[in-house]
């Protein structure tokens, strides 16, 4: 049943691709319409094999090869519901299902508003889906049966048995697949020859923002998972797979900013196409690296030999996009010009270029080991120190632009208004650096970074206060004035909220990477140790035997100064079948700092090795997630369209006469 449904889905998707492209190209609306109905049918066709796969997992049906490889009897029932995306074939099916779902939503909205664009966009979405389905049916069929049914499966990688498994992988994969939607809208508009009309921009922005926020949340959840499970007190390691998810995020970040310039000023039409093509290519590149790419990574859960197919598909779509771009570039000319080199538009452009630079540096560092292998027959590793050193300064510059850009006027910034806009923020930045230095906080780079954060926050708060005060003066109470201020120009104030969340992330990153401390300690039961203001006593370790693992749980009494904070129970689980030891740190988190204990080793003679860490300000990184989400929702919340143009012109002309 599932198998048949998969094959039908492949055929329908192939038909929908052809029908949409031909219908749009040959101006046969009926044909395009039939393609669209095919597209609407696909989620139904794909939910059937997905359900049967989930059912096979839940009922421990090990005659299905994929289930036998990724599950076993010892697996907790809750995880069997999500084990579907633990491996390569199943995660592809998940991607296909999500893509078909978002395609329906996107095309249903698009074909009503922009029929020409919609047909091409449907074609592009269906082309991508056909590619996924062809791989699933031909090479990685998750429903394939084994000739003999094994008694038990091989089980899932124990590192995946964590609450994060329920949220990070689906959100991250959805984000990567969502990049296809704004890409198809932009390309569809361009192929329809309507790229020069900015009608696609509001849909492009909407889907661009949705993609961006899903990718962001996916990355944050991944960072949080790494922080709680990998047991080294870190959240980002510049690992190839992390990089491959970061690159499309960077390109999308550039896109959602640059699209605002097209929305407001009708400029950057070609540039936006370049950005969205880059974002899509990078998402494909990510799939290539993720699925058995040539670079070793801690994420090799879904590894397979089909990475190269993704590379080929990326090459194909990139080439296709470039041909379409070249063919239609005449329609993308912008009539608007800049009045001055210093204005919000130019900052936007600089920001875009810097984001792309970070993305390209990341790509370069990620794939350099391959070049090195080929060119000099020596394996080198390009790790976190390289990325921190090269990308760190660019990211800092980006944070600074985030403070300056929104305060500059469109079109032309004069000396007076630059000074007026930046007076308070710059002062706050300088004061911050001076105060921190006077208080004896070292590390010049981190001081500069904190000072830039202060600049950005002051700029935003100054805008809010000024707006609220002027509304308050016209008779509104402060809370109402503030609420109406945010509601009046939602894209702008939503953007400010997101910027604040980014600063929270930055503060967490700066605090933990520059001011974190750690100490490895050997303790026997009854021993005590100290780190910073914290002192702790190692009480005992308890060993528990489970079907699939041995857990050693340590118990420590923790004090901060004289006050008793309670017991902390970090543990280490060893999975003999996989020869993998998973450590789970115990974390006591406050807005000031995280106190973090990781057990590294329990020896036979009773000695235990602990790593104790103090990670300042990390709490703010996780708190940033909900705020960021709220900001995006505010920015996208539909706003009543401004009154019709005729009225505005009349009002204007009356005003001019008066």
């Amino acid at each position, binding site marked *: 049943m599932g198998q048949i449904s998969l094959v039908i889905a492949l055929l329908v998707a192939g038909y929908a691709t052809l029908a949409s492209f031909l219908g749009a190209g040959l101006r046969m609306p009926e044909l395009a319409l039939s393609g669209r109905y095919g597209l609407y049918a696909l989620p139904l066709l794909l939910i059937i094999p997905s359900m049967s796969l989930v059912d096979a997992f839940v009922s421990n049906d090990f005659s299905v090869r994929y289930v036998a490889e990724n599950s076993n009897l010892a697996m907790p029932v809750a995880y069997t519901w999500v084990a579907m995306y633990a491996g390569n074939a199943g995660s592809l099916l998940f991607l296909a299902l999500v893509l078909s779902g978002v395609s329906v939503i996107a095309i249903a909205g698009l074909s009503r508003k922009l029929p020409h664009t919609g047909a091409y966009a449907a074609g592009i979405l269906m082309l991508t889906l056909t590619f996924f389905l062809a791989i699933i049916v031909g090479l990685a069929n998750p429903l394939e049966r084994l000739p003999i049914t094994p008694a038990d499966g091989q089980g899932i990688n124990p590192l995946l048995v964590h609450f994060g498994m329920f949220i990070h992988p689906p959100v991250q994969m959805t984000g990567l697949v969502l990049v296809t939607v704004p890409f198809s809208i932009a390309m569809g508009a361009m192929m329809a020859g309507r790229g020069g009309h900015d009608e696609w921009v509001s849909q492009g922005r909407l889907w661009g923002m949705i993609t961006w926020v899903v990718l962001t949340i996916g990355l944050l959840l991944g960072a949080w998972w790494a922080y709680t499970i*990998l*047991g*080294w007190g870190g959240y980002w*390691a510049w*690992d190839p797979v992390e990089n491959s998810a970061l690159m499309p995020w960077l390109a999308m970040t550039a896109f959602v900013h640059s699209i605002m310039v097209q929305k407001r000023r009708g*400029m950057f039409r070609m540039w936006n196409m370049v950005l969205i093509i880059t974002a899509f290519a990078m998402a494909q590149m990510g799939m290539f690296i993720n699925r058995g790419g040539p670079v*070793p990574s*801690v994420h090799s859960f879904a590894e397979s030999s089909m990475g190269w197919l993704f590379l080929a598909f990326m090459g194909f779509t990139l080439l296709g996009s470039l041909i379409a771009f070249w063919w239609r570039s005449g329609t993308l000319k912008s009539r608007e*010009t800049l*009045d*001055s*080199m210093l204005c919000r538009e*130019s900052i936007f*452009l*600089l920001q875009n*270029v810097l984001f792309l*630079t970070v993305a390209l*540096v990341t790509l370069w560092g990620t794939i350099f*080991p391959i*070049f*090195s292998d080929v*060119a*000099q027959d*020596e*394996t*080198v*590793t*390009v*790790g*976190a*120190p*390289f990325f921190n*050193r090269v990308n760190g300064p660019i990211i800092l510059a980006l944070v600074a632009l985030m403070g300056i850009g929104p305060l500059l006027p469109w079109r032309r910034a004069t000396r007076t208004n630059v000074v007026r806009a930046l007076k308070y923020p710059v002062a706050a930045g300088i*004061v911050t650096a001076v*105060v*921190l230095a006077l208080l*004896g906080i*070292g590390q010049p780079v981190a001081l500069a970074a904190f000072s830039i954060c*202060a600049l950005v926050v*002051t700029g935003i708060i100054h805008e809010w*206060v000024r707006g609220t005060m002027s509304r308050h003066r016209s008779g509104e109470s402060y809370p109402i004035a503030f609420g109406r201020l945010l509601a009046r120009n939602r894209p702008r104030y939503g953007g400010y909220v997101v910027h604040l969340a980014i600063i929270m992330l930055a*503060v967490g990153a700066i605090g933990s990477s520059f*001011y974190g*401390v750690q100490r490895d300690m050997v303790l026997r039961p009854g021993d005590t140790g*100290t780190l*910073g203001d914290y002192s702790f006593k190692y009480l005992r370790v308890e060993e528990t035997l489970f079907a699939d693992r041995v857990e050693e749980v340590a118990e420590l009494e923790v004090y901060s100064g004289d006050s008793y904070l309670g017991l902390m129970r970090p543990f*280490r689980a060893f999975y003999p079948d996989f020869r993998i030891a998973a450590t789970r740190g115990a974390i006591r988190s406050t807005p*000031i*700092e995280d106190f973090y204990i*990781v057990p*590294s*080793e329990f020896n036979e003679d009773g000695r235990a*090795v602990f*790593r104790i860490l103090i990670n*300042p*300000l990390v709490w703010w990184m996780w708190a940033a997630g909900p705020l960021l989400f709220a900001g995006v929702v505010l920015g996208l919340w539909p706003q009543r369209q401004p009154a019709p143009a005729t009225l505005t*012109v*009349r009002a204007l*002309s009356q005003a*001019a006469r008066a």
Partner: protein
Amino acid sequence: MSWAKFISTGWDLRWATTGIATVMWLAVACTSQDDVTLLEQRAHELNEVIMCPVCPGESINESQHTLAVQMRAIVNTKLAEGAAESDIKAFFVERYGQSVLLEPSRRGFTLLVWVIPPFGAVVAAIGLYYVLRTMRRPRSPVASPTAALQLTEDERARYFEQIEAAIGETNSEEQRSRADG
């Protein structure tokens, strides 16, 4: 704004106090470092650039693999004996190869990984400058908004009269067609 005025405005003062309090709070969060000895600091920095050979991509600082724990111990012992950072790196490179270092060396072919990004950034900056310069040049004088603003009062009045006449026509046409329909 003069200082006297700055201080006399209560709001500004309150905001400034809030700001400074926030900064002091930041400072509180970042002071635990005083507790760490120089030797620990050096070991930490070294651990971060040495890769654990059996867990690709992870440094021995991050990894909790037994091998990483042992390698950390070696780093500590050697530092305590007075070895230099470069000696310790060389020690591990001899055993596990160049790939044990997470930061690629700056010699030979590997130098490329360091040189390309700044080179690319310079090219991008020059490109950006030229693009902005081209965009600034107005393609036709009429399209320039500054030119539009330089209308005389008479011209402006005439302009708005024409617009209003046009609106009036459209509206009456609409009314007529509505009456017909």
